């Protein structure tokens, strides 16, 4: 912030600059006990019960990609943000900002996709808004969704709850969404049949929380990938995290694309994966529950909380060295979700 007088693309990238913007501008302005927790969703006390509340905007380009589209992404994204608090998602709002001249048939496809995913997950889309702006004022269509969900009485899941002794579980391969969207963008001339992993994670989460009360953190590694997610958790909880490169599941297509494009898979977004910090003794119970769900069949332990004297993320590399995993900085991938 102190070095920039203008908003850069990287301020929205989910990396270091996004974090700086939140810390130095948004939080001081809106600080209260709820917002300062910086979780994926706010946890609101309401007449002795707790409600999770979250919002997100979707600007993905292209609008349609293998494995999903902006509509599916908009509903899944908010469902997942609620689920990451252990909440059962209930109601969602949908607001559309549309460019003049946008084809009605395309809008119908997007709406239909939102309808399908809401039906599949049992979430109700209960309110909404539409704005249309002059041609050229925005690119096709942006969608905002917000949602609320109910948090079961004794759950206490937050990015600030990770502890020494926790293991880090990842629900499956990383970066599928990032590469699937990129490969279908103009200017990237490579063919891929890789599908986005865009999916609602609420059912997987409910199976996990049913099995264990010792799930301390849940996060879905979207923008900025697991590098960002793990760094955020390490900062929130004041812990050191050690992950092992050899244990991180990455599809060959994703690795190959990263080699060609010079990208780091740890920085790539997923839209249907989660990271869980679980106490060591419950890890296998949770892992088993996850593997029984189709969205968690490749779940695996990728690391552990290795200390609490400093906030940092370390990676044991494939050849046995160790290095820092930094919050990604600079130009990440704009409009990936």
């Amino acid at each position: 912030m102190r070095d920039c007088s203008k908003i850069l693309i990287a301020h929205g990238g989910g990396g270091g600059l996004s974090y700086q913007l939140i810390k130095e501008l948004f939080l001081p302005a809106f600080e209260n006990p709820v917002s300062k927790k910086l979780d994926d969703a706010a946890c609101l006390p309401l007449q002795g019960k707790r409600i999770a509340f979250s919002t997100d905007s979707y600007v993905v380009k292209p609008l349609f990609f293998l494995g999903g589209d902006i509509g599916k992404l908009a509903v899944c994204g908010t469902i997942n943000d609620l689920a990451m608090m252990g909440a059962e998602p209930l109601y969602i709002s949908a607001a559309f900002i549309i460019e003049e001249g946008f084809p009605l048939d395309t809008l119908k496809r997007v709406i239909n996709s939102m309808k399908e995913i809401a039906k599949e997950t049992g979430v109700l889309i209960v309110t909404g808004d539409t704005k249309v702006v002059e041609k050229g004022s925005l690119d096709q269509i942006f969608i905002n969704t917000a949602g609320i969900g109910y948090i079961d009485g004794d759950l206490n899941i937050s990015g600030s709850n990770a502890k020494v002794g926790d293991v880090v579980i990842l629900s499956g391969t990383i970066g599928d969404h990032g590469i699937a969207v990129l490969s279908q963008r103009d200017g990237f001339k490579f063919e891929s049949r890789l599908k986005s992993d865009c999916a609602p994670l609420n059912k997987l989460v409910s199976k996990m929380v049913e099995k264990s009360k010792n799930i301390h953190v849940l996060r879905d590694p979207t923008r900025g990938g697991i590098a960002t997610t793990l760094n955020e958790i390490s900062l929130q909880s004041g812990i050191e995290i050690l992950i092992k490169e050899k244990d991180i599941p990455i599809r060959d297509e994703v690795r190959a694309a990263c080699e060609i494009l010079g990208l780091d898979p740890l920085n790539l977004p997923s839209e249907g994966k989660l990271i869980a910090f679980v106490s060591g003794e419950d890890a296998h119970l949770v892992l088993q529950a996850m593997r029984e769900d189709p969205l968690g069949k490749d779940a695996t332990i990728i690391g552990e909380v290795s200390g609490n004297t400093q906030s940092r993320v370390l990676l044991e590399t494939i050849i046995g060295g160790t290095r820092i995993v930094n919050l990604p900085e600079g130009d990440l991938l704009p409009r990936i979700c």
Partner: protein
Amino acid sequence: MEYLDKLRDRKLADGLVKKIRTLTPKRHNFMEVCGTHTVTILKSGIKDLLRDEINLISGPGCPVCVTSTQDVDKAISIARMDGVILATFGDMLKVPGSSSSLQREKAEGRNIRVIYSSLDALKIARENPKKMVVLLAIGFETTAPTIASTLLTAIRMGLSNFSILSLHKLIPPAMKALLGMGEIRLEGFICPGHVGTIIGSTPFQFIAKDYGIPCVITGFEPLDILQAIFILLTQKKEKKSQVMIQYKRAVSKEGNPVALDLMDKVFERCDAKWRGLRTIPESGLRLRDKYKNFDGEYLFDIRDEEVKDPSGCICGEILRGIKEPIDCKLFGRSCRPYHPVGPCMVSSEGSCAAYYHYGRKER
């Protein structure tokens, strides 16, 4: 990926590390000349893995980093001229000149185009016949042949609105200059594999012969580098100093004769200004006289002005291997990848950027 995986195999790495440890009763100073090697060394954790055995020092082998502030200013001056389109590879955009950068000039509306291939510059020239397209050509022996080939293609196409600002540099003269300065005691060179594919191993011979320092031309995967370190240590143990090729899957003793011919046809050697190393004789490439109508230096005649490098920035010392990025007061504070003060933080192959992203030590 299967092919790459073999070059990142844990068991083989463990074996090499074990052998390296038996050969290092004392710590050795080896320099990796090339920025791509620096990235692999940090990203794969080799630096940390062998921290007690080998002091791996980053060298001047990142073309963006060694481009002098004057040369960046020169490119900016050309970009400011009417009727000019400056075509550049993306990594030059953020490099700070003395008072601006190409990125800032682009935001101000100068006609600066980012290209992915030098042939893109020809396309731009063809589509804009009333503008002069200037290709900002930076790089080492690795990129010079493609630029030479682009120029010859432009001539074949009959393009008269295309020119080149050649800031090309040559690696062996820089290594010689570095050794001549005598600031660091080097015991081995991990030589750049990509440069080696073009020039072969012969141009490195003087280092082994005249300075008694072993050299290994090395590939870019973790096992390549571990093997190169092992070969260097074996030479040390046997008290030999030879130039050996580890990167045999790409490099031959003679190099690539077609590429060398192309380079020789279009370019001739000249003195060149290197950031941190000052002016090194015969270390640059300029267009031969017969191509002067395509030479940005000749066409635009921009005077060199003395400029100072940014205050507090130690990129020069880092490029000479006498300091590490973490020794810089600006590192990670006012100098970060999104807001670089010096060029070593700009390029993804720059030492500072690599240390910033992957360095083991605290900042």
